[in-house]
């Protein structure tokens, strides 16, 4: 047994480094230390055994195996200890004020870029202790609240935190109040537009400031804006912008914004990076170790509620850091997001067991964040010239059972979990009068840890006294530093009653006084005999998950590149070309390099030159097109304001939406992802190809022209709790007219400015406005207008506005009374993208009829049928059949309602919509007549790649079924590692984003 030296140090700041007067008397405790005989981890991957670290006046002055110890230094023997450079907690949130109420505020409370994290950091001693307990000596303080949240700071976690840097990065979050919020933005769509406009405004503000500085007299003053000033400064000085992200998609979105505005991008990660690791930007990331709790799968019914992606995440989340490291990412780790901060060590240890090297782990706590935050010369290493930040442990930090004994910050020691003053565990020979007892004491490890939080280091233990093979359990046993006490209740060997022992342990001896039941006392003494055998707790070592990743993650994700033969020949099929060739019975069609190469009665190729599909009895159609969809949109409506032309669906694409796969299984290949119908002028749409498995940007139909969604009627005039204009169709007309007038004015201002060099030199420039840009593009014919509409009056009205402003509407969407003004639609040249047979779900569709499509078609309007529903999108061919039912349209013409007609409406008919030589190899193969309810889609090809087939679907089902079963077995056997409970998402994938489909979903038996 060994008694250890415990240093009780009070921590004081350098008196010469502070400006205030001394309190009471000057205090000058020793300021130089030599920490000897330790294992020193000087830098990731670099270790000195038996090393010495010299600290002096807050700095590290020398490190090495043979270091001369200065005379002034007090020597601390660190035998058995490990020394690391102090760890950096790379993410520590501080809350910000809700609103800038100053005269220098931006118009919207979500703009708080002027704030500084350091100003808002008022830590409680308990939270500082908690951080130090994990070995953190420095923290990156990040303001939280709003969208542009302010500048982060780097702070030492000593008793009086010192700021090392007060503008590390500008923190940005995709915050929004959600539907029903009291301020713009209320959606992810709006949040992204807000960020983009904010960055544009910052540049503009910066420019105005320099113009005003040069020409203060000729210009009217503009409102000061301290947030825009802060943003502009950060942008110019290439200060990082760090985006908080919720999953891998948000990282991609941040990357898009950084590219557009040339930002120095940092990412606050989320634990899902592994899913698209090849698509992640090469930016510095700060990644949490927030692993989910075991899914509750013991109840098999409950297990059904978890999606496969969730079950997989349980097993893959602890591998995330290792995967990032092996992919070469520079990242820092943070305890942010953990409900129990103490899980950080456990999770870090799990990550290391699963393949994160200790060097990479250490770098993520030290050198990586130090370097990125501009502190590589003074933080992150145990080296001369570095700040005296150290972590002292009794073993490898990455073993979760290792204790952090202390941290040093600025050369001052902060106790965390010091070794006990004495180690009393074991057997003692105790002499009390003539009795010779065997005293057994047992100090459990976790009791010691528990005692850390106690005000005094009191240790509670258990033990027994043994005499002549008779055991007596000790009660009231306590060890307070070196003072031991216990009591014994006995009948025979001692006096009847309770006898109390009290004594002090010194080295291997203990002496004290015993007080018998009658109050008489006597001395006792004890000698240490043997230490207790330490029971090594067995801990299972974890292995990295053996799951393979699929794209997107979860059921039906693709696990290898989709089949994409160079040449595909379909023989002897009925080909519905939707082109001039009409319907061809028993013809052949050849696809090559993703395009239609040839359509002929007979095409023969040398053997082995192509994938040959026997089309006998089968029907081939172009890939179907849906001109109104909300699938794969993570956010649909930014509806707070009546005009939101600035928001873009392309920003919120969700490539993980299983709706795409389900639609592919119904022959659909192209969709028009539209903004919702919450406001008269909604957001910009994006046309997408359903390249299932691809990441967001690769889903975009690049050649498709840009567009925008408008909406008329009930949805936009509905009363809002906060009182939004308009509330009548009269007001809707005025809102739209007003927006175009404003856009004309905007364009005029820019044209004037652009033409006049003098203006450009000395006047405040017009402000670029994303909303106005979109409206100008509509008027210039560069942006297609798709308008949600029902009644004939509003349809007519919008054609008149368009003509007044000199453009043509691309499509009216829904347009259920289009049949009443078909001649107007034809004359104006608008397409009609309608529902086949919906009606009666709201008042404005009381006159909606199934004959709408045929009537409009017969009056010369280009008509398509759309879904507006993830469900209906799976069977658009059957929607087309309704044009035959209602009004007797020719079958080939009816099919065009879901092929070439929507392609024309979206102006992508050069590429898709019909099977003609040179067009994209987007096609579906059907078991029979495509308009027959009995036919099913057997294969769907897109760009010459097979994205769906019955055969592959069968394979995916079996694969995913096995993955689920295996995972559930693994979960059932796994230990409980804590963590946040996952909310079961098994039902996710059934979304109800749509203008009007909600009721209809209910009807169709949907949720």
């Amino acid at each position, binding site marked *: 047994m060994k008694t250890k030296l415990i240093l009780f140090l009070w921590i004081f700041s350098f008196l010469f480094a502070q400006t205030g007067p001394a309190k009471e008397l000057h205090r000058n405790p020793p300021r130089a230390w030599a920490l000897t005989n330790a294992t020193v981890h000087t830098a990731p991957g670099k270790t000195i055994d038996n090393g010495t670290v010299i600290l002096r006046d807050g700095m590290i002055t020398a490190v090495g195996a043979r270091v001369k110890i200065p005379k002034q230094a007090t020597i601390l023997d660190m035998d058995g200890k490990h020394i690391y450079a102090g760890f950096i907690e790379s993410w520590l949130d501080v809350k910000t004020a809700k609103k800038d109420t100053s005269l220098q505020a931006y118009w919207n409370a979500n703009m708080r870029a002027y704030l500084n994290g350091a100003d808002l950091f008022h830590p409680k001693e308990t939270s500082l202790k908690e951080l130090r307990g994990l070995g953190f000596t420095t923290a990156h303080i990040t303001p939280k609240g709003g969208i542009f949240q302010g500048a982060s700071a780097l702070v030492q976690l000593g008793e009086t935190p010192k700021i090392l840097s007060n503008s590390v990065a500008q923190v940005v979050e995709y915050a929004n109040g959600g539907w029903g919020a009291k301020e713009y933005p209320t959606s992810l769509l709006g949040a992204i537009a807000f960020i983009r406009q904010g960055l544009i405004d910052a540049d503009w503000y910066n420019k105005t400031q320099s113009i005003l500085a040069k020409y203060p007299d000729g210009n009217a003053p503009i409102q000061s804006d301290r947030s825009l000033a802060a943003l502009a400064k950060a942008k110019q000085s290439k200060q990082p912008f760090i985006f908080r992200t919720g999953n891998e998609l948000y990282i991609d979105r941040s990357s898009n914004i950084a590219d557009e505005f040339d930002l120095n991008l940092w990412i606050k990660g989320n634990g899902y990076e592994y899913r698209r690791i090849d698509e992640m930007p090469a930016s510095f990331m700060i990644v949490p170790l927030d692993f989910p709790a075991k899914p509750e799968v013991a109840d098999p019914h409950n297990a059904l509620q978890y999606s496969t992606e969730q079950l997989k995440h349980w097993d893959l989340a602890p591998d995330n850091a290792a995967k990032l490291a092996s992919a070469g990412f520079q990242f820092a780790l943070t305890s942010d997001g953990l409900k129990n901060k103490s899980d950080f060590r456990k999770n870090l240890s799990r990550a290391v067991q699963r393949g994160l090297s200790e060097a990479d782990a250490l770098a993520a706590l030290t050198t990586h964040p130090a370097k990125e935050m501009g502190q590589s010369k003074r933080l992150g290493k145990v080296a001369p010239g570095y700040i005296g930040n150290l972590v002292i442990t009794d073993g490898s930090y990455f073993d979760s059972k290792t204790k952090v004994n202390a941290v040093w910050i600025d050369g001052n020691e902060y106790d965390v979990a010091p070794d006990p003053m004495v180690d009393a565990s074991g057997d003692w020979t105790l002499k009390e009068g003539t009795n010779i007892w065997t005293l057994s004491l047992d100090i459990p490890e976790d009791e010691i840890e528990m005692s850390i939080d106690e005000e005094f280091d009191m240790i509670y233990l258990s033990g027994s006294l043994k005499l002549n093979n008779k055991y007596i359990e000790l009660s009231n046993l306590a060890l307070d530093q070196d003072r031991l006490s216990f009591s014994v209740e006995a009948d025979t060997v001692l006096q009847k009653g309770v006898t109390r022992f009290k004594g002090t342990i010194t080295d291997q001896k203990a002496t004290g006084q015993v007080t018998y039941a009658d109050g008489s006392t006597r001395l006792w003494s004890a000698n240490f005999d043997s230490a207790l055998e330490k029971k090594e707790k067995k801990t299972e070592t974890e292995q990295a998950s053996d799951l393979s990743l699929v794209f997107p993650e979860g059921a039906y994700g693709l696990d290898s590149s989709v089949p994409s033969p160079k040449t595909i020949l379909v023989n002897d099929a009925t080909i519905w070309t939707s082109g001039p060739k009409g319907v061809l019975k028993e013809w052949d069609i050849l696809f090559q390099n993703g395009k239609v190469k040839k359509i002929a009665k007979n095409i023969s190729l040398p053997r082995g030159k192509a994938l040959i599909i026997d089309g006998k009895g089968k029907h081939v159609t172009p890939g179907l097109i849906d001109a109104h969809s909300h699938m794969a949109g993570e956010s649909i409506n930014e509806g707070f304001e009546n005009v939101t032309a600035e928001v873009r669906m392309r920003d919120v694409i969700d490539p993980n939406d299983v709706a795409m796969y389900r639609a592919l299984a119904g022959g659909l290949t192209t969709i028009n992802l539209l903004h919702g119908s919450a406001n008269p002028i909604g957001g910009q749409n994006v046309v997408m190809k359903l390249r299932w498995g691809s990441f967001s940007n690769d889903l975009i139909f690049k050649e498709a022209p840009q567009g925008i969604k408008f909406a008329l009627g009930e949805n936009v005039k509905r009363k809002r709790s906060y009182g939004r204009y308009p509330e009548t169709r009269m007001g809707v007309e005025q809102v739209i007219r007003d927006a175009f007038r404003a856009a004309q004015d905007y364009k005029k201002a820019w044209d004037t400015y652009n033409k006049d060099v003098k203006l450009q030199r000395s006047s405040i420039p017009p402000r670029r406005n994303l909303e106005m840009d979109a409206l100008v593009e509509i008027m210039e014919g560069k942006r297609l207008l798709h308008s949600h509409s029902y009644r004939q009056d509003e349809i007519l009205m919008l054609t008149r506005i368009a003509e007044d402003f000199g453009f043509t509407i691309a499509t009216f969407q829904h347009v259920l009374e289009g049949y009443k003004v078909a001649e107007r639609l034809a004359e104006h040249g608008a397409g009609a993208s309608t529902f086949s047979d919906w009606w009666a779900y709201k008042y404005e569709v009381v006159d909606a009829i199934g004959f709408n499509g045929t009537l409009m078609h017969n009056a010369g309007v280009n008509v398509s049928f759309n879904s507006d529903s993830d469900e209906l999108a799976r069977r658009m061919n059957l929607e087309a059949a309704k044009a035959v039912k209602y009004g007797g349209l020719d079958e080939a013409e009816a099919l065009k309602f879901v092929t070439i007609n929507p392609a024309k409406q979206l102006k992508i008919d050069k590429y898709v919509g019909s099977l003609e030589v040179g067009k994209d190899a987007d096609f579906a193969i059907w078991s029979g007549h495509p308009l027959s309810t009995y036919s099913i889609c057997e294969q769907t090809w897109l760009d010459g790649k097979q994205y769906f087939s019955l055969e592959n679907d069968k394979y995916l089902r079996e694969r995913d079924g096995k993955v689920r079963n295996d995972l559930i077995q693994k979960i059932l056997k796994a230990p409980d590692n804590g963590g946040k409970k996952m909310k079961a998402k098994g039902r996710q994938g059934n979304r109800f984003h749509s203008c009007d489909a909600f009721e209809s979903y209910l009807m169709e*038996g949907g949720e």
Partner: protein
Amino acid sequence: MKRTLITLIFFTFVIANDQIPAPPQKHPILLKNGVIHTVSNGVINGAILFEKGKITRIAEHISPPAGAEVIDLDGKHVYPGLIAAVSGIGLTEISAVAVTNDHSERGDFNPNVRANVAYNPDSQIIPTTRSNGVLIANVAPGSGLVSGQSSIMLMDGWTWENATMEHPSGLHVNWPDMGIRSGGWFRMPADKQIKRRQESLKMLDEMIKEGRAYARLRQSKSSKAEDYHDSDLRLESLIHYVRGEKPIYVHANEVRQIEAAIHWANRHEVKIIIVGGKDAWRTADLLRTNNVAVIYEGVTALPNRRYEDYDQAYKGPALLHEAGVQFCISTSGSAGGSYRVRNLPNQAAMAAAYGLPKDVALRSITLSVAEVIGIADRVGSLESGKDATLFISNGDPLEIRTNVLQAYIQGRKIDMGDHHKSLYHKYQEKYRQLGILQE
């Protein structure tokens, strides 16, 4: 001449703007040279005769009785009227306009309310629905825990009393959620959800116990004043069900709900039908061994869970059929979906495309429905003695492209016009006037 007659029959609807309920069948009607899809007895190329509202004969050749109207079908098809197994039709007009809705009474416990008294025979949805061959609908209320009693309605009649074919057809219970819901707009905390579930389940147990006790009290023959028990409309309405005379329709989609409902029914010895049944395939053995039928609502619904097969809902009926579970197919019974009851045949067709034999698919919206809801003695198939509730079509009604040409309900010749056809003809006329459409 005969062809002219038929043409007249099939296209006279264009004149009517408002549909007029048909008078009782006055003379025998013989449909000949047709393809008669009996459902119960195969397909017969021949004729069908009905008199006084009842089918009297089906044969290859039938000589017309005296005074019969003879219609030459020229190869057209005759089918029994399709039946909506659960529906809100007639109880709602425009779901988004609150005042047009009469399907959801206030409160959680409404066993006493009856659908037929609020059935609007002049709903514009009814004619558009029978235009696609749906001639009978089991109309049900739909709110709270115990919604009320459904009525089987004919899709033609001057008043709700005329239109009532059977009342009550059953009691409707919305089985409580058995799991914890999260995400989306649903924000109730888990403990609250559990408490609410437990309360609801207790209420369902109490309902049966109290209903039984009440039935016994009201049955008492004693004339003593102390034996008299005051009336309670809610408990009174339960008598049929606690005695097992009529079925309780339990609306349940998730597997835990279905299982709980079956155990509940066994415990209380009541007869239930599962409505919805998305997960029924997961517990088919339990359904079969307990003889519980399923009204499968969501053939064209999305799969219930993200990882389920893309065609899980499509193939649901085929799975139940293969497992030997009694079932029929319905569109959703929710009132908001009333206007889509007309697409009932497409639901059956979708099931057929994904594995259900075609004849079973047809049966699942005709005879199977009649069996499940207890009217198979009168309708559901073309057989002598059954109601002449049938329609003539130009093809397989399960194909979308097929149209229903003429319907008869209990032998009454139905006005085939509807709001949509009227508007169609009105606007065809507009474009003729404009010279856009040629005659």
